[in-house]
């Protein structure tokens, strides 16, 4: 009986995979490239313009342009524009730093109705939690490797 059901399910899943429509890869890639590329171009323009100011060096200009992009993404999230862009942009809209800002601010907004502490503060990292955890874990791991290599090299 169990075998029969397993077989039935296998046939069904194969059939479902065959009939389920998939996203058009070329179409998605072009859109992701356009939107991701546009973000990077805007970032680069900002960086070059900022660097023109005498008090800002190249390194600071890069930081400021990132800050502007992140702020813009948060404002776009708040005004409800961002998710419409991301629907087309896919990875092109979340890879260049804006995705992180969107994920945090959207969660913060969403759970505001459960209170600032019990809602916003608790759920703010709902979506980005894994990014932060992985960021910390892997940077610690790579740091350890670098340290080990330097210890071995100094022997």
């Amino acid at each position, binding site marked *: 009986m169990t075998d029969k059901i397993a077989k039935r399910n296998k046939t069904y899943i194969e059939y479902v995979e065959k009939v389920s429509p*998939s996203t058009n890869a070329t179409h998605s890639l072009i859109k992701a490239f356009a939107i991701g590329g546009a973000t990077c171009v805007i970032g680069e323009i900002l960086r070059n313009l900022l660097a023109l100011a005498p008090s800002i060096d190249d390194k600071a200009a890069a930081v400021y342009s990132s800050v502007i992009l992140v702020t813009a993404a948060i404002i776009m999230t708040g005004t409800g524009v961002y998710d419409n862009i*991301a629907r087309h942009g896919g990875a092109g809209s979340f890879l260049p730093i804006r995705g992180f800002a969107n994920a945090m601010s959207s*969660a913060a907004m969403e759970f505001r109705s459960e209170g600032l502490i019990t809602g916003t503060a608790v759920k703010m990292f709902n979506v980005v939690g894994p990014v932060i955890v992985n960021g910390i874990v892997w940077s610690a791991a790579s740091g350890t490797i670098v340290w080990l290599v330097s210890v071995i090299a100094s022997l």
Partner: protein
Amino acid sequence: MTAKSQTLKFENKPRIIAGMSVVGRKEGDGPLGKYFDEIDDDPKMGKGSFEKGESAMFATAVAGAAKKAGLRPFDFDALFAGDLLNQLISSNYAARELPVSYFGLYSACSTMTEALSLGAAMINAGYYRTAACVTGSHFAAAERQYRYPLEYGCQRPPYAQWTVTGAGCSVLSIKGDGPYISSATIGRVADYGVTDANNMGAAMAPAAFETLLAVLDDTGLSIEDFDAVFTGDLGRLGARILRDLSAERGVCLGQKYSDCGEMIFSREQNCYSGGSGAGCSACVLNSFILDKMRKREYNKVLLMATGALMSPTTSFQGESIPAISHGIILEND
């Protein structure tokens, strides 16, 4: 599988004497827009949160249906209600305002036909004279419970579905005018191993298929005997799968079959495979289907609401999605 009948026959003819549908703006802009009784532009219905808004839609649907039936909500003997939110909060808070016996039901998106089946059974047995059956769902409230924050920019596969914002209430009574529920076929849980929580159509189609076969077996009817056959919210993909599964067994659904989820949104509305949610079949039944039955364009209708009994917890644990479908047959005298 046993040959046991899944169908309850109601010889005392419990009738749907009134129906009320309340929907959101997007549903109102869809192809069925003109059939809905009330369209609300504000997704929070003037309340502080989406959950309160959903509950308010329930209250509006119950009050509206009572008014159409020439009753007051206090006149109901019982309220059969259900929604998609944890602990059935929308139904519970709406029921808080009504001094009537209350059944809180969960059968995911097939709750409407479960409520009608139970209500009809109670009325047929003579325990109650009138009962209200109400179910609903809310896009924003469902998204935050099942998926991501609303403004989070993510892409969904083309076979995903869009939760309907709406509530529908039917008033069942032993006397009065309207189509009667001649039988109810109580579904069994079907799980064909689909694990993709976005592909609810594929998860639910087997449940609808099994219930369809049970309806035909138990009643001895064939598709030709119905004027129309509806499923709740299989969406475009699920409806196609149901057609294929049925055809394999020699049951041709043909032109008579439609899916409420497929009907409620047009392709231009960017709702992927179509609508879903407990409110989907409830709104379509209490607007379009009842309307067509009253005008006698349909005299015998089979409605099988379909529910994916999934939870984010079990989905993350890798469990497949169990599904259920309950069917009711509506007839005109």
